[in-house]
């Protein structure tokens, strides 16, 4: 029985946590629950804290010298305190808090990515299921998927004559390829056994799609979806730099034009954190949906 080639790492339960927690069982709530919990939290939190502290220290030392071209963390914190503490301000136009810029970017990604997911799974199913469709479409996909996301932007601007739909289109066209390709591989790898079962039961096309295809290909589909969300988030910043308006990409570009280097650094940290959260959300959905799909 064929196992999915790529497994979503988030699917594995964090077993290590429990092993530690039960190693020193002591009577009482304090001894049996809270102490191990604190110890576990410390074990997990200490290494990253130490590493971050070291990085910040080195950065501070390197950039505090006179003539340094980038600000040290202390300056960044000083310059951007208002930005960090009040992400919700709105003075009209593009002079808004980081929250609003992020929200605009996430909305664009959500829309473009949702379209890419729906279209990508449908096209991937077609390509995976029909040899004719594969022969016809696969060469086109293989060429188009290598086109860098931003190369689509001028064409999209020409077509839509507006910035926001163009950015959404760039997200769509960036995210769709890994979704199509992984879905097609997943569909093609449905074991013949499952197809035989479906044949003996005389499942119709729709039943086959929902009861065999989707669950069987789910690990592959979610691998594609997870690559797709990562690429979307990579593309949105670049696309927004070019289209302008509210959005984290233009915020960074605007900060550069105003020589607000500290703002750029804070924005980058935000972009990283939001990208991390998006990836985790898709991984979590994948883990929930593909629970039990690993071959028996």
């Amino acid at each position, binding site marked *: 029985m064929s196992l999915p080639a790529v497994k979503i790492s988030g699917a594995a339960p964090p077993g290590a946590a429990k092993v530690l927690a039960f190693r020193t069982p002591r009577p009482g709530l304090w001894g049996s629950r809270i102490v191990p919990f604190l110890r576990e939290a410390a074990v997990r939190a200490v290494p990253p804290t130490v590493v971050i502290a070291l990085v910040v220290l080195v950065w501070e030392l390197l950039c505090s010298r006179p003539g340094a071209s980038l600000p040290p963390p202390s300056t960044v914190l000083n310059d951007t305190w208002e930005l960090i503490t009040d992400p919700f301000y709105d003075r009209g136009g593009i002079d808004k808090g980081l929250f609003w810029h992020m929200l605009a970017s996430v909305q664009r990604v959500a829309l473009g990515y949702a379209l890419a997911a729906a279209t990508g799974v449908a096209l991937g199913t077609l390509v995976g299921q029909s040899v004719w469709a594969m022969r016809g479409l696969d060469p086109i996909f293989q060429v188009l998927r290598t086109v860098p996301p931003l190369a689509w932007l001028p064409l999209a601007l020409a077509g839509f004559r507006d910035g926001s739909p163009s950015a959404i289109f760039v997200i769509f066209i960036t995210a769709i390829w890994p979704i199509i390709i992984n879905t097609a591989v997943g569909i093609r790898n449905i074991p013949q056994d*499952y197809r*035989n079962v479906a044949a003996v*039961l005389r499942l119709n096309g729709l039943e086959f799609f929902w009861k065999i295809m989707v669950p*069987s290909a789910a690990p592959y589909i979610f691998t594609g979806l997870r690559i797709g969300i990562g690429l979307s988030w990579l593309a949105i910043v670049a696309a927004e730099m070019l289209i302008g308006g509210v959005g984290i990409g233009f915020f960074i570009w605007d900060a550069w034009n105003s020589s607000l280097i500290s703002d750029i650094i804070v924005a980058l940290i935000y972009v990283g954190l939001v990208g991390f959260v998006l990836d985790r959300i898709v991984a979590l959905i994948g883990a929930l949906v593909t629970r*039990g799909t*690993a071959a028996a």
Partner: protein
Amino acid sequence: MTAYLKLDHIDKSFSRNGSTTKVLAGITLEIAQGEFVSIIGHSGCGKSTLLNIVAGLTPASEGGVLLENREVNSPGPDRAVVFQNHSLLPWLTVYDNVRLAVDKVFAGSKSRRERHAWTLHNLDLVQMTHAKDKRPAEISGGMKQRVGIARALAMEPKVLLLDEPFGALDALTRAHLQDSVMQIHAALGNTVLMITHDVDEAVLLSDRIVMMTNGPAAHIGEVLPIALPRPRRRLELVTNPAYLKARETVLKFLYERHRFVEAA
């Protein structure tokens, strides 16, 4: 003997790169209702292909399959298959695997509650009710095969097709399952066609053993009726002369007259 299931002059050839290999040549076999027939032969003789043709999963090149005098050439639940590798859907629980078949086959004829009861009844037949909420990955190979049998039985098939159902199991588990299959066959009177390469299994379970010659162009070499009375008990048969004679006949056929020649 009236033919319930009839395999009528079945030929099967596979073509690849312009060259055609004949796998099966002129297989004709009549099976009566309630009969348990085993097909035995060396691996590669095309016995699994023959079962797939009866199941409708593979089309025959020539000839056909008649069930109650009607030709069948596509798969359907009237010829339920127990696959060698169980083929349970890993994302469904044991119950849901059987229920999927029940829901599909009895969608129009049984109510929800009846389908639930029928699913549990079939799991009970193979003694798997205790694990009904487990997934296939959480149960042993023998248990998976039991569920596979329950799923096939739940379709109320006219013919039950067993494709080396116990081939992947250890000897003790295999014996347990063989006993279960005998009990079920005695209770329900199914018509069964089983593929096997295990001589003891064939003699123990079958009313008739169909011995296939080696390929290419394999055909039926000999048909041996097993006249042992039922219920048969494994331990009593060990010294039974009729059993030993049948066993010897099959062994001689397989290892003297149609010895398997390694291709490699």
